[in-house]
């Protein structure tokens, strides 16, 4: 079992515009209403990078920035980063494939540099000056639980605070028919090894034999399930619950069981 503490949370999905607002919805204090995810660019990006920055990075940087601010503002703080995304940036993939399908194949240099799975981590470190480890991974539909496990293992083993972000952007045709991710969604958890005065909750993570995964809250639109990062919602609902909960997340052939105890 691995024990970590959640220091702050960032969240962006349709109708879930930041942790404050989403927590009220997750607690049932306010009703859920669909609203498209606004494509904003976090103000921390320098102007040159802002021009080049791609949709997937804008989305994940927004929740990473929210979590950082919640945890005490923009003071330079050295954190390791874990970014988990099943599919990276669908728009960049489509544009590169189009360029390569031309009679004279051509790729824009900026687009190629943006095609790496760690583009988000690159923009993040440039924007924040963070120079610690950044790890970018994929585990297809289980990318959220795999990323959370990697982040927790880094916290436990290295003793560093870790900023963990899971995000995926929606696909358009023609790739949508191959990978039907229908919504944009990003969630960030800032996690650490020691309990602090501002800790929100303790998490105890255990790999168990396969059990049924905790269901999404009933009000969540069905399309959310298409986004691997949105598989975080049962855990976020537990984090919003003042009594805490134990949630089960699908993890390959096993289950990642997470006991949430509010601080």
């Amino acid at each position, binding site marked *: 079992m691995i024990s970590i503490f959640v220091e702050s949370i960032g969240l962006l999905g349709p109708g879930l515009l930041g942790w404050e607002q989403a927590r009220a919805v997750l607690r049932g204090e306010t009703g859920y209403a669909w609203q498209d995810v606004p494509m904003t660019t976090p103000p921390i990006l320098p102007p040159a990078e802002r021009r080049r920055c791609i949709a997937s990075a804008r989305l994940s940087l927004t929740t990473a920035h929210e979590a950082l601010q919640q945890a005490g503002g923009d003071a330079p703080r050295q954190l390791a980063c874990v970014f988990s995304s099943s599919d990276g940036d669908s728009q960049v993939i489509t544009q590169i*494939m189009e360029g390569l399908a031309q009679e004279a194949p051509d790729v824009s240099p900026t687009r190629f540099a943006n095609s*790496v799975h760690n583009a988000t981590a690159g923009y993040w470190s440039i924007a924040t000056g963070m120079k610690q480890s950044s*790890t970018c*991974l*994929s585990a297809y539909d289980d990318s959220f639980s795999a990323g959370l496990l*990697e982040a927790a293992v880094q916290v436990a083993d290295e003793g560093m605070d870790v900023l963990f972000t899971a995000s995926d952007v929606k696909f358009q045709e*023609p790739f949508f028919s191959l990978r039907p991710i229908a919504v944009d969604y990003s969630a960030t958890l800032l996690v650490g090894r020691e309990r602090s005065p501002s800790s929100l909750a303790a998490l105890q993570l255990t*790999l168990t034999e396969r059990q049924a995964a905790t269901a999404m809250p009933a009000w969540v639109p069905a399309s959310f399930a298409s986004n691997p990062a949105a598989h975080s919602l049962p855990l976020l609902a537990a984090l919003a619950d003042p009594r805490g909960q134990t949630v089960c997340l699908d993890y390959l052939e096993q289950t990642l069981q997470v006991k949430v105890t509010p601080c």
Partner: protein
Amino acid sequence: MPSPIYLSALTATSALGAGLDATLDALQSGRSGLRANDFQLAPIDTWIGRVDGVEEEQLASGLADYACRNNKLAQLGLRQDGFIDAVNRAKEAYGAHRVGVIVGTSTSGVLETELAYRSYSKNGAWPENIRYREQHNLFGLADFVRRYLGLQGPAHVISTACSSSAKVFASAARFLRQDLCDAVVVGGVDSLSLTTLYGFTALELVSTQACRPWDAHRNGISIGEAAGFALLEKQEGSDILLTGYGESSDAYHMSTPHPQGKGAAQAMQAALQRAQLQPGQIDYINLHGTGTPSNDASEDLAVLEVFGAEVPCSSTKGATGHTLGAAGMMEAAISVLCLRHGLIPGGGSTTQIDPQLKANFVRHTKTATVRHVLSNSFGFGGNNCSLLFSRMDA
């Protein structure tokens, strides 16, 4: 030294040949695997490190959906050096759910998507045989390796451009120490694709000749492909240890390294610190050494800052090409060969060392006492990882 990690099995396949014997023979004799580009799908004026026999590889039965150049190369790699037997031993000893698979790739099976998209552009429909999950998605590589080896432990694919399959060693070491696994198959596989061949050409980072790291006239990389794997365990049972690793971010630029190599130096220092070794104890550094003017200049400053100008170093990319997401693993395998055979491989393609570069770059292969080897891998987005391997008897 805090809880060492044992490297109990190893294999590598690249342009130097399939398996460790072919790799060692090439390193000892100074043979390069690079050739004038004959990858007909991307007729670019360059040299490449192509693996023979990838096209002919037939995937194991039941895994037809995974058929793509990258997974074929992965299977060709897994079949070498008795690696499957070693994994089976671990599986029997620990159970399939206790053996993890943490592998790196930068482009997975993108070549098949590139070809499928051409067909889509013409016909307005995807071809029948496209399998996005198994071929294109990054996790397709780990999924394929798990199924081929019959493993059910923790798994993910790390994709941080050219440091991907160096970072898998750090991730696996942590999973082992935190007792989520008893053994982990780590590895890296990247294969030739239009995206990388045309993409690096667009960035003007591709050489028209075989790449010449550290050379005064170096003018870019030679793109290669490779598949390498290692089995890491907590339990004693090997002559080689993973003693250190260091990871860092440049926080500087998306496709250019920090000019003073600050992030690279930070990664090397962290690896030394973890291994509790002094710079003077390192017998050889396998450089990232891509052969672009800015990469080598930046890495040279980083090496000087941490090690001074004494420690012998070289880049083996003049032999293998730059195997991108597989480079960390490929060069980890070369580092282990150096430890086992007392070898310091020369950067044979380099003819005239750049007088601006001050590190002790070795041009001709030689034998030496080699107890500790550091291997560097640095990627786009300023993502750095250094690995440190040591002989058990060091």
